[in-house]
């Protein structure tokens, strides 16, 4: 997982809570990194441990926390870290989301054996967009928040329903997005 994700968690905790909490979360997760470099690859476990210990320390259910993380990441960490990319990634939420596979591929190019997420898009005739996602990491709640975050980035309110979820035993997670 790229450092920019972990950095997002850190920034979320530090800005919404405080750095003391963050230090606590980090130590609970057994993480010794003083800070995260956005381009470095960190073990996936670290990200998952950070997320779950943040949930514990902050007393927020993990899924709600991940949704918040997603929204925060787009509007803060991602936007700040990849300003040019955010501009190029699309001129609308739909275009932005549709470009995600390319974007991820591009930004993980330098990391050997990277496993960027792969989305399968299904554009429905009525304009809705289905985003299928097979997450081995179980971070679909984060995706939920990220998609909402994209809407916020373009100052649009998206209607989003998670129609299936691997955590509920489905074969994949599916986000049904309705654009305004």
């Amino acid at each position, binding site marked *: 997982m790229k450092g920019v994700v972990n950095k997002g968690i850190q920034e979320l905790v530090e800005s919404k809570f405080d750095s003391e909490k963050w230090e606590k979360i980090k130590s609970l997760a057994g993480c010794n990194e003083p800070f995260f470099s956005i381009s470095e690859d960190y073990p996936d476990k670290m990200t998952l441990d950070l997320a779950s210990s943040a949930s514990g320390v902050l007393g927020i259910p993990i899924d709600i926390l991940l949704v918040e993380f997603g929204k925060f990441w787009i509007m803060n960490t991602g936007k700040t870290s990849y300003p*040019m990319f955010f501009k190029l990634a699309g001129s609308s939420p739909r275009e932005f989301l549709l470009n995600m596979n390319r974007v991820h591929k591009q930004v993980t190019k330098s990391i050997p054996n990277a496993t960027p997420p792969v989305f399968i898009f299904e554009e429905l005739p009525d304009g809705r967009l289905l985003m299928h996602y097979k997450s081995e990491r179980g971070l679909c709640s984060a995706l939920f928040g990220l998609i909402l975050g994209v809407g916020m980035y373009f100052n649009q309110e998206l209607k989003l329903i998670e129609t299936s979820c691997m955590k509920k035993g489905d074969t994949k997670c599916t986000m049904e997005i309705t654009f305004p």
Partner: protein
Amino acid sequence: MYDGNNIPINSSELKYEINLNQLSRLAPFILAVDEGLVVTWASKSIVSKVAGAIGTVISEFVEMKGIEEKLSLSLIESNVEKDLKVILKSGNDRYSLFGYLINITGGFLLLASPDVKTAQDLEKFSIEDFSENNLTMDLLVAQDEFRSSFNDAKLAMEKLREINLVMGTSKQELEEEIRLRKLAEEKQIETARGLFWRSEELKASNEEFRAHADLLMKRKKELERVTNEALAANEELQREIVNRRIAEESALKAKEQVEEANRQITIAVTRANELAITAEQANKAKSDFLACMSHEIRTPLNGVIGMTSLLLDTELSTEQREFVDMIRLSGDALLSVISDILDFSKIEAGKIDFENIYFELQTTVQEASSILVQKITDKKIELISFIDQNIPLVLRGDPSRLRQILLNLMNNSVKFTDHGEIVVKAMLDSETDKNATIRFSVSDTGIGIPKDRIGLLFEAFTQVDASTTRKYGGTGLGLTIAKQLCEMMGGKISVESEVGKGSTFTFTVVLEKESEIKQRVRVIPASIQNKHVLVVDDNDTNCAILTAYLDQWGCRNLAVSSAEDGLSQMRRAVDKNDPFDLALVDMMMPDFNGADFGVAVKADDKISATHLIMLTSTAQRGDVKTLTSIGFAGYLTKPLNPSVLFDSMATILGEPVADFKIEEGLVTRFTLAEDTFRAKKTHGNVRILLAEDNLVNQKVATKILEKLGYQVDAVNNGKESVDALRINNYDIVLMDCEMPVMDGFQATIAIREMEGVNKHTTVVALTAHAMSNARELCINAGMDDFITKPLDPKALVELLDKWLEKEDKIYSTSLAG
């Protein structure tokens, strides 16, 4: 698929399309144009920007500088036209592209990619407009990540720099960081500048860029590590620094305060030292001045007083005598002022010395009273003294200082009392094995002291009010001296007073007791014990004191306040078969005085056997004769010396005391003025050598001595005195201390050397100094005694008696008062 100049194109449209789609992954902008220059196919990137591209003549929305002509003529010279600058027009938007133009069957293909030179250029395109392997994208990622990492690194560096500042890391290290940072910045600028260059250049640049990014990354990692360590160290250090800063600040403040205080102290000490030196010099100057003044003033004063005394003994008219008396009084007053000032100065300078000799307290009190009695004869005042018989007879201390205190207080009383009485009492206050504390009181019935002035009384140069000095004279030092003297003798002084009623000064002194062996025990003879004694005195205090003495001696007694009462009591006593053995009669009584009483007693056979002793405070010429003729057995002056009274009574009542004289049949202790200078015996065989440089004083002393019946040889300096002793024998030498040629001390030393051990001529120093060390100086020089100038005839007589009649012991100590 696209391989050099040869592009195999399938006739099948589908395949054609697929191939072009595949091709568009490499070059997203693709246009297929037929021979008529009409666009037959356009890639998604073009269609998304120019919606109606397909079916439109290419020149409608594409500009290709320099080859439009060729296009229209299908005259592309080679199969491939490289490095084309292509502008895609869509409305007002312009998209810069660069690409290749390839000849194909029935037309040509335009393959292009975005030509991005600025960020603005970039913003026009979408990510889809770039091929997946487009370096621009790679660079874009790298750029974003670099920027972000750079920011992180910058933050880390800033933290590090802060830490460096705190930890005092060397400047060079910091400069190295800055240099690297600058390098990075320059690289970044450089990289950014060449960011969107053509692919080969971009590639090279990218490599370099990445290499630099790697370097930075390493650097960053290093920074992270250092930062991490530093942060931990820093945390501790920060706490330490805060603590130290607080400590340093307070220490600094304290140090400043201490320094300031030290500075002040140094200034003060310097100043104090200067002052001390000045004070020392001033003090020395003062002492010298005092010594000088003492000599210079007393010497001429000696002349004035001495000559006046001599003058009074000559034939003078009443007026002349009055004037001379005035001179004498003025001289005495001046002398007492000078003495007061000298005493005060000595006390102030801490130079006063106390003698520690055996003496009899009652003698001292008596002496003081005697001196005073002459002053009160012209006032109607009774001077009464009482000495507690429990006080040890012999004590050890400085009698002259004690007398000085008493005289000071008594003089004051006399000064401020016009009628009534002055009572001097000495009581035993407390006693230990070694010491006796004596409480003296001097009470008068004078004008008294206002309450608000009492506190100021003992302060120097203070009198009850300023007008006091004018009316009563005095320096205002008397009480201050008295206070300090009695404090030096271990006591205290206090005063109680009521305006119009009088004052009582009380003081205590601590005196050493004589050892048992030397302490004489007063033996009361049988002749006195149990005798019946009448006291006739109109003064209640006198009665009380006399009866107190009589009680102590075991006499039955009765006191009455008038002559009439006295007579009737005497007659009644005879009736009771217990007649009075003795009557003590006061001279001064209203209506019926002591003499009249005596006449009445002696005229009445019934009571005439009773012995009479007259007590008077106003002795007059001829008294002795008158009283003897009346039939008085004794005549004593007040204030009474209890010893004298005791001895007189013992003598009269049948047990004569050794050495007590009965003069002309009347027991008396003569203190009449007329007898003062009278020679008690002929001293014609006594030779006195007087060494005195001041001719006036020489004359005064000579006259006094001659009047006393002595033979006097006078010399002018010490050397002459030594010479005179070489030739003649003298019984006593009176030696002035300060003389030219050879002073008195040197002369005495010379005399003692000359005499050796076989002979010892008495040498008495005449000193005008009255300074504390005079006695010591005299003794050290080998002198036997000293007497202060101006010469007091009485003191001189006593001194001469002491040294000349030493062996004869004519006066017993108990009668010396």
